[in-house]
């Protein structure tokens, strides 16, 4: 099953490579990974999307917790959470496709953030599924380039990941 893990770790050189090294050394999957510093500059927050059986996910969380620089790990799947990913997608937009592309971007609540005579660059935010759906919905042959951030996640309501 797909799980979203939220990790709070020391903002230190090498901490990221320990996490990534752990996944490859123990043959765990990383579907996506995002990381950045938090409002507290000594801490980074990472979101990892992974998949595996319950036993594997349990081991992943335990092994992550064991890393000296990891402060806290939560599996967001354990309760209500919000997930967002951003995609920048550059598409060919000429002739009648140009109008159609604008319409599709509107339907998905995307924003056109760069325009040339022949192309649009669209910014789209949502769950990973929604971004996939957009790619499915448009004509593949017009896609020139996509770049995605990978999912970030946060617990709903009062649920807070802090030290």
């Amino acid at each position, binding site marked *: 099953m797909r799980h979203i893990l939220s990790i709070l*770790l*020391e903002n230190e*050189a*090498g901490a990221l*490579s*320990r996490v990534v*090294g752990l996944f490859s*050394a123990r043959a765990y999957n990383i579907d996506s990974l995002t990381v950045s510093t938090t409002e507290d500059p000594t801490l980074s927050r990472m979101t990892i999307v992974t998949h595996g059986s319950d*036993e594997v996910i*349990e*081991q992943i969380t*335990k*092994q992550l*917790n*064991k890393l*000296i*620089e*990891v*402060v806290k790990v939560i599996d967001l799947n354990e309760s209500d959470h919000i997930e967002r990913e951003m995609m920048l997608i550059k598409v060919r937009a000429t002739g009648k496709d140009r109008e159609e592309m604008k319409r599709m971007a509107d339907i998905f609540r995307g924003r056109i953030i760069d325009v040339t005579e022949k192309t649009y660059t669209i910014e789209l935010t949502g769950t990973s599924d929604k971004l996939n759906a957009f790619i499915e919905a448009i004509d593949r042959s017009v896609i020139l380039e996509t770049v995605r951030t990978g999912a970030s996640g946060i617990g709903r309501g009062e649920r807070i990941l802090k*030290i």
Partner: protein
Amino acid sequence: MQISGAEIVVRSLQEEGVEFVFGYPGGAVLEIYDAIFRQQEFKHVLVRHEQAAVHAADAYSRSSDKVGVALVTSGPGATNAVTGIATAYMDSIPMVVISGQVPTPAIGLDAFQEVDMVGITRPCVKHNFLVKDINELAATIKKAFYIAKTGRPGPVVVDVPKDVTQAKAEFHYPESVSIRSYVPVTRGHPGQIKKAVNLLAEAKRPYIYVGGGAVQGDAAAEVTELVKMLGVPCTNTLMGLGAYPGQDQQFLGMLGMHGTYEANMAMQYCDVLIAVGARFDDRVISIPSHFLSQPKKIVHIDVDPSSIAKRVKVDVPIVGDVKHVLRDMIDLFKQTGLKTNEQHLNNWWKQIEEWRSYNSLLYTPSTELIKPQYVVQKLYEITGGDAIITSDVGQHQMWAAQYYPFKRPKQWLNSGGLGTMGFGLPAAIGAQLANPDAQVACITGEGSIQMNIQELSTAKQYHTPVKVIALNNRYLGMVRQWQEFFYGTRYSESYMDALPDFVKIAEAYGHVGFKVENPADVEPVLRETFSPALKERLVFLDFRTDQSENVFPMIQNGKGLDQMDLPPHMRELQIAPFENNRDYGNMC
């Protein structure tokens, strides 16, 4: 006053009460070696290969309650150390390794003798540091020792660039450490402890399975007290040997791939299992599904949550330090007056005694060929069972584990998890330095000893009179055994041709050597070796042993604990399969 980074390293080691540093110099650590030259508080032991420095430091830890320290230069010095670091990591041994690094401005430029030590060792250390700022040097060393010895112990590498050793700063050694992201648990959860006690009290066939965690966690006294108090059977893993006295009636011997018949059968057929600092290794329980096919309730005590439910789902996980958890269990038994059920226990012991009566460690004695088992048994007798034994890896290691019933923890030092040939001799040197009054013997093979034989020189220089007991079967015996069983006796590259004359080698290094070919000479030569006349000498005994001897019992890959390959004398026996609720009548 400002002092150099090199001096800070030395002063920090002094603050930690370090007695010995095992190391080898080179460009990146010259500054540190100069600071060592100018101090008297600890001794430096110059090994002949960095791998040996790390094994010696590791065994220094294993055989004492201190943290071993190794010091190596950058590049090849650092890579040579890696096998030693991985060895300590797999067996959860506390250790601090300081490695030199090229100057910080040169890092990443493929500088001379540059290697990414932090990167290379990342998967085989508990933690590692690259110190780029001299102002963090002392605090980092303090953290390294703290991390190495707390929680689940392990090796920690501190990589120090040369310019950091040359820079100057004030020296303040922190009094204490606290790392917000690292808070090891010590006490077990009281609710879980209660569950464990209740399970034991209700058990029909209880069993205590004790591993290296009890040795490292200084919990042998608690293990023994609990096992004695409850009257239950106990087994040790290869790493746990010595945590429970090997000669005691309640001890069933080692379990696992080369465990005794009774220890393995009891593991399969117990109904309540208490795992104490043991990690359900594949060499112990083989395939989890077969092990669990016989229903049992499992309590698992381990300081590392990731050891729990890694290979086997357990009913009562207890995260905590073994010593504390066992103490709490003992107290709870005393407070509540709960006891194990005598009638159930009697029945269980009858079954176990039946298993034990087959004597699975019996071997065929010989007057012509030296049996390796016989050498170990005689060694046990002659050393009064008191020697610290190190070993290498192979058949000789298993015979040492089977035929030298260890009395106390930290008496048996071997590489279990990584299985590193070449561990034995440097380990013996480290153990001798940590225990100057103890008898130290290294049980080895002619293959393994040659992986670090250069350390005979170190032993000479530092007067460590260890006794090398080579069970020389002219084969990479453990490999040959597998080839005999599983590869149609095609002995591919397992014959040790062109062996050196070990007696001459020993003598060339300034030691004493004896070659022993006749079984009748085994005892007298061992007596002489351990006599006062040779007390101060390293003696190398080259025992020419039976080449065809195999280690039994043996669990083949893919087989279960109750599906052992048995020694010849047990193969013809009609052994009744285990039966739940069998009536044992008045037998035994």
